[in-house]
């Protein structure tokens, strides 16, 4: 199952220019990530987890080395091509949900489909499907402000999943959630991963998340310190 490669990272380095000079956040990463993986990048704060996820997600670009995602080299993409990649093949989940507050749950989930120009009836069907996977059908008309944190994060997952992307990138998705909600959404994500063969990549230091991972990539100071498969 986990054989075809979706992501290839070679000698990846990322430098940031700061006040005090050049800071190297990623310092020579080599990785491949395959289809339907349920993988986590773990490590202490500042180890470069978010930076790595941002590059995979084409929100940022490598300083040195290569990151090839779904056949496309991130450094070679212009902003339009990067947007197209995100729009059509990647899903994002953030720590702080990042829902659009003026829109209903339905509309938040609908938004990616609007960008992909699905027609009315297709959108409706896909959004309702996605809300059903996440158990949110009865919340379709609610606004984010009326939902609990756990529900908000489920909406964010529904939004990431609605277009059935090949890769979902989740940066600390449980950091704002209590244990029960964390387990709930993690179980849901495991299910979606199995059902649709979607690759999930987490950035986290939450043990609850780590408990569900099938592969754990440990970063320390911008380098891969350990890369282990577990028995989940």
């Amino acid at each position, binding site marked *: 199952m986990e054989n075809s490669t979706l992501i290839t990272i070679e000698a990846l380095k990322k430098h940031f220019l700061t006040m005090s000079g050049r800071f190297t956040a990623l310092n020579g990463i080599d990785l491949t990530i395959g289809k339907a993986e349920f993988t986590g990048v773990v490590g202490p704060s500042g180890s470069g987890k978010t930076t790595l996820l941002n590059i995979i997600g084409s*929100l940022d670009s490598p300083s040195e080395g290569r990151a090839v995602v779904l056949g496309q080299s991130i450094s070679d993409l212009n902003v339009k091509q990067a947007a197209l*990649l*995100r729009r059509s093949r990647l899903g994002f989940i953030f720590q702080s949900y990042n829902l*659009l507050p003026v829109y209903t749950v339905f509309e938040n989930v609908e938004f990616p489909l609007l*960008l992909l120009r699905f027609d009315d009836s297709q959108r409706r069907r896909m959004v309702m499907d996605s809300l059903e996977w996440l158990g949110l059908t009865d919340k379709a008309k609610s606004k984010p402000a009326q939902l609990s944190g756990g529900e908000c994060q489920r909406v964010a997952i529904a939004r990431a999943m609605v277009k059935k992307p090949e890769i979902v990138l989740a940066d600390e998705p449980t950091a704002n959630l209590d244990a029960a909600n964390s387990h709930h959404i993690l179980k849901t994500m495991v299910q979606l991963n199995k059902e649709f063969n979607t690759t999930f990549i987490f950035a986290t230091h939450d043990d609850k998340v780590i408990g569900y991972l099938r592969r754990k990539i440990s970063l320390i100071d911008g380098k891969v310190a350990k890369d282990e498969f577990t028995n989940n």
Partner: protein
Amino acid sequence: MIRFLLRGILRDKQRSLLPVVIVIIGVMLTVFLFCWLRGILNDSIELNARFNAGHVKIMTAAYAKNVDQIPNDLALIGVDTLLTKLKKEFPDMKWGQRIHFGGLIDAPDSKGETRAQGPAVGFGIDMLSGDHSEIERFNLEKSLRRGRLPVHSREILMSEEFSRKLKVNPGDTVTLIGSTMNGSMAMSNYTVSGTIVFGTGPMDQGSVIVDLKDVRNALDMDNAAGEIVGYLKDNYYDEEKIGQVVARFNRLFPVSNDEYAPVIITLRQQNSLGDMIDEIKGIGAFAVFIFVLSMSLVLWNAGLLGGLRRYPEFGIRLAIGEDYSHIYKTMIYESILIGLIGSFIGTSIGLLISLYMQKHGLDLSSMLKNATILMPAVFHTQITSAAFFIGFIPGLLSTVIGTMLSGIGIYKRKTAQLFKELEA
């Protein structure tokens, strides 16, 4: 997609109502100020036009040269035929004949001896023919302080201040001592019918107003008039139309060497009114410019802040895969929409207020009691065609430019950077 974004704007009051209200207020103020300045300019012109200059004034060439001395010996003669011709040739104009004169007003005691005396500036205007135009131009009905307007021949109106100085009341008799057209002394008696206050310093000091016919009799000026004033029928001084009138007049009455031939002079050419017009126009334009500029800054800022406030939203939209240029475009469309709606409503409200003040005026006469220049005490606005557009400069242009500039920020920042702001 567009519907989706519109729904968002409408639901987010900070994005719709607030900026629209800011734009409305800014545009409204701009339009109103603009109309007000135009109104002041216009009122000042009209005031001078009504009492003195006309939109155009016809005199003999010789009279025109010495107009300050009121040289009635150089007055126009054969006025009836001239007026008939003017009325026929210029159907868009209204004409009135006037005789200015200087003299002494003598107030006698019961025995007929001089009790008090004072120099007067006199206006001979038509008050008794049944045509009310001159009465209206001088605003006599509203300016009346005591007594009534003349209804019979040999009645005289005096300015209130002058009547108090001479201790004369309505019903009293006064004697006007002047000189005839031929230079001999003229004395004639009048009954004071009423007193007037014009609300403009110079006119309120020593003026008397007598019916034109009485003046003609008294000064031996049969069928003569010092000047014929002409007004455009809609009462607004319009330099272009006046230019046409002048050109036509000069074709009908070619300039000759005859000192007594009629010549036409525009409002602009009299009493340095032209300079005043230009000056007020200049000041007005400058004030409007400053105001439009500051309103522009405010609205520009509002557009800028509105854009900055939405960086998180843009971050999310970018992550979901919308591209920069699309976000930027929607942002601009949004601001155009808001600018248009705001400018439209703001202009409408501004024009409505201006329209009200154009009709009813704002009376500041108590504040302007001591003014000595011929300036209106009741402020009117004037709506010109420019008033319909001026508000769109700050309302639309500035809002959109402000948004454009704030939007450039999203290009400048790296995508990941927008996220840092988002997560913060």
